[in-house]
């Protein structure tokens, strides 16, 4: 068997990108981490742990930083969350662990859990230690996992720790899904995502890249494995359905982000308009600023109260100089071969509460690049073809329906988790889904084949 090249060494970082996307939250050094760790009260049944979808035992890993047991600290993190390093950087901790910190309730700064977690994980990587888990004796069971995003990775880790074979299929050449390609580089660099996933391969996970799974391929996979985990995420970003959308210079937020992260492009033109006001839109708008745009607008059909971006993301964008236009709707894109402007109309609320275009308010916003970020479509419809008539994977508005505790779909052999089941949440939610499903699959296989 030929020596495989570690994932994070299969890519080259573009220095001009790295320079412009340095850490939003710089790492702690030891002298800063230990006093911060000591500030933690060590709550019992800690709210931060409960708030974390993967239930990392936060006070425990923090106290281990304080005591100088850094390997133990990383182990505590990884035991609950196999992507603990990525989550330390990518999680919106303001609404998770740090948001739940009891310090908020007595006029004190919450413990900087994310930075402490990153400190523990960085120390772990720097130590060169291997993943601190044993894999159990092989059970002979085998599970296929579709998609190499956080949900599948977490599921695979649980399976391997229980001695169940895990084969992951992904259409891309490298693993991680949105964890690798979709998180703003100043939060989670692509290389860090790959470094963390590289560790998983130590558990003996088999990766099959550049492999698109359609209904036919899925049926084949099902035949060869004892169970299938669907971690297929969401599909393409919606289109506006207006004139001019095919012009050069119209792209979407995920392509823009994946493009600069993988070094395919390192600059954007001067005037950029982002359509949509979710967290991905913010990431795209800030990326545009950092990639050289001089004027970046976010246009949104409703007001700041309704936008789906977190308040701290909104603040961040404003601090980076992104301008927001509220209550406007794109009605056309103008240009010859490439984009010249986005045509907009103002919206006004009706008495019934909906928003309608206001006649005569049409205006034009000059743009060299238009970035659509108005939500991702689902791409799970092919799943309803899979399985016997009585036990099909069921969908609801494109989402795969599961038992939240076990991840099991209506077809007992199929499990699912992550964005394809939850409508598009965070990396940590996908990890939690995958983890529950991994445990769920193991329990189901054990129950199914248990000698009676």
């Amino acid at each position, binding site marked *: 068997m030929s020596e495989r090249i570690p994932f994070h060494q299969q890519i080259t970082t573009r220095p001009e990108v790295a320079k412009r996307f340095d850490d939003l939250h710089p790492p702690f050094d030891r002298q800063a981490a230990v006093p911060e760790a000591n500030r933690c*009260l060590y709550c019992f049944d800690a709210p931060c742990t409960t708030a974390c979808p993967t239930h990392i035992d936060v006070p425990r890993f923090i106290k281990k930083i304080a005591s100088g047991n850094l390997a133990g600290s990383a182990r505590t993190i990884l035991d609950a969350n196999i992507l603990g390093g990525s989550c330390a950087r990518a999680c919106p901790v303001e609404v998770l662990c740090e948001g739940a910190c*009891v310090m908020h309730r007595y006029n004190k700064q919450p413990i900087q859990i994310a930075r402490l977690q990153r400190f523990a994980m960085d120390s772990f990587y720097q130590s060169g230690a291997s993943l601190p888990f044993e894999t159990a004796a092989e059970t002979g069971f085998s599970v296929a996992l579709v998609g190499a995003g956080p949900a599948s990775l977490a599921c695979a880790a649980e399976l391997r720790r229980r001695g169940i074979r895990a084969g992951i299929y992904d259409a891309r050449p490298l693993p991680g899904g949105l964890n690798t390609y979709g998180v703003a580089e100043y939060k989670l660099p692509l290389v860090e995502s790959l470094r963390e996933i590289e560790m998983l391969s130590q558990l003996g996970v088999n990766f099959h890249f550049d492999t698109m799974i359609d209904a036919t391929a899925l049926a084949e996979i099902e035949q060869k494995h004892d169970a299938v985990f669907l971690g297929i995420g969401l599909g393409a970003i919606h289109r506006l359905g207006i004139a001019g959308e095919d012009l050069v210079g119209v792209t979407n937020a995920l392509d823009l982000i994946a493009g600069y992260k993988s070094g395919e492009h390192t600059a954007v033109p001067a005037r950029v308009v982002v359509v949509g006001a979710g967290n991905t839109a913010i990431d795209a708008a800030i990326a545009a600023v950092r990639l050289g745009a001089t004027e970046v607008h976010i246009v949104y059909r409703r007001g700041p109260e309704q936008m789906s971006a977190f308040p701290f993301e909104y603040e961040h964008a404003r601090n980076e100089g992104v301008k927001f236009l509220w209550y406007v709707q794109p009605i056309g894109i103008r240009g010859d071969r490439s984009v010249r402007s986005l045509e907009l109309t103002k919206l006004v609320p009706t008495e019934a509460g909906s928003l309608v275009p206001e006649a005569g308010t049409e205006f034009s916003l000059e743009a060299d690049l238009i970035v659509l970020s108005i939500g991702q479509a689902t791409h799970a419809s092919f799943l309803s073809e899979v399985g016997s008539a009585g036990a099909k994977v069921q969908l609801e508005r494109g989402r795969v329906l599961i038992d939240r505790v076990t991840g099991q779909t209506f077809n007992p052999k199929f499990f699912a988790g992550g964005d394809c089941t939850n409508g598009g949440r965070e990396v940590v939610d996908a990890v939690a889904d995958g983890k529950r499903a991994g445990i769920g699959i193991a329990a189901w296989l054990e129950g199914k084949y248990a000698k009676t």
Partner: protein
Amino acid sequence: MPKPKPTLETTFCGIPCLNPFWLASAPPTNCGEQIMRAFDSGWGGAVWKTIGAPITNVSSRYSSIDWEGRRMMGFNNIELISDRPTEVNLQEIAEVKRRYPKHIVIASLMVESKRETWHDMVQRAEDAGADGLELNFGCPHGMSERGMGSAVGQVPEYCEQITGWVKEKARTPVIVKLTPNISDIRIPARAARRGGADALSAINTINSITGIDLDTFEPNPSVDGKSSHGGYCGPAVKPIALNMVQQIQSDPASALPLSGIGGIGSWRDAAEFILLGCGTVQVCTAAMHYGYRIIEDMQDGLLAWMAEKNFASIDDFRGLSLPNVREWKQLNLNYQIVARIHENLCIGCQLCYTACWDGAHQCIHLDRTAPAPDTTRTPSMVEAEAARRISTTPIPKLDAGTAFTNTVTPLDRIPRVDEDHCVGCNLCYLVCPVENCITMERVNNGVPFESWEERTAKGLVPPGAQEVMSTNG
């Protein structure tokens, strides 16, 4: 009537002092230049770094204990007495006294245990102009191996004899500095008093090894790979010092004017030592940590507190707390308090809960949202329930109407005290990070005062307890 403006001026065993704050005999009082700067900063007196037998010091000399990020909670040294020639020290004493006649310079002395040697040193120190003498019977390291320092302080007969020799010669007050490295501080204190001491100072440093390097396996401070036990001081020793101060001042055969030493770093510490009977206080570690400038708040804070309490002078509150320290058998067995958790202040950390279950009496419960009080739910059950909970990141678009907020502590996180079983131990109140969130409140049980002493005198002690008493007695 306007309150009198308080003063820090005081008299200690006949020595008039600008204030009760002295620098203890230690590195901060190594030379005249230092001491004059200290006086400029506001220190009322200084006990000169011990003068005596010639010595050579080692390097390194100090080590310390940090606690949760704070430096030097406890401090340890293996430095010996002054390594400067006696003549130089005495010349500088004369110079300091010439320039600072109102400030107090005490000569700390330690020489070999010969009458003539002591007489000679006493004479020279007093000739130099020292306002008083402190006999170093406490240094626990190095000097004790040569029959000096704590080797004297640990043998009451030596303590008494040398004090007597000094008193034969001394014209200024003689202060005997006691070592805490004994079983009962009152024994050497009584010996010093019998020897004629005018005053005592306590405590000197406590024998210690502050730590072992987990890579080299060497104790610290390391001297070429080896170490030796040192003398422990700093904030960590204050409770030990306070206890010894109280023991001395509550013992008629020991009690003398007392200069309190041990972990004093603030006016609060000083006030506590004075409340237990000290006339002056001596400071070392805090000055070594932060410099002489700490004296400003020590004076300022103590004066403000005195004004608030209506004390005009140090003597107004000196020893005020002594009657409040009793033997355990004299405490009121019928006094009853219980913990009350004030829900409006509780932040939901549940430290009181885990402390009560694991470290106390299992009478704090997490059952406020249960249909009925549930004292059977254990910490493990609470944790197991939490582990089963499914949490997700709240996404505004997907979770409309569930705005993220964390300003109010959820009721299920606020522990409840089972007052019927609370023994009033204080543990929950001690671990609670929020001021006034848990208060210990008296339960009026209508039962009159009764101490163990009284109860046993009446023969009301249960037979089992009587046995325990005799086996322990």
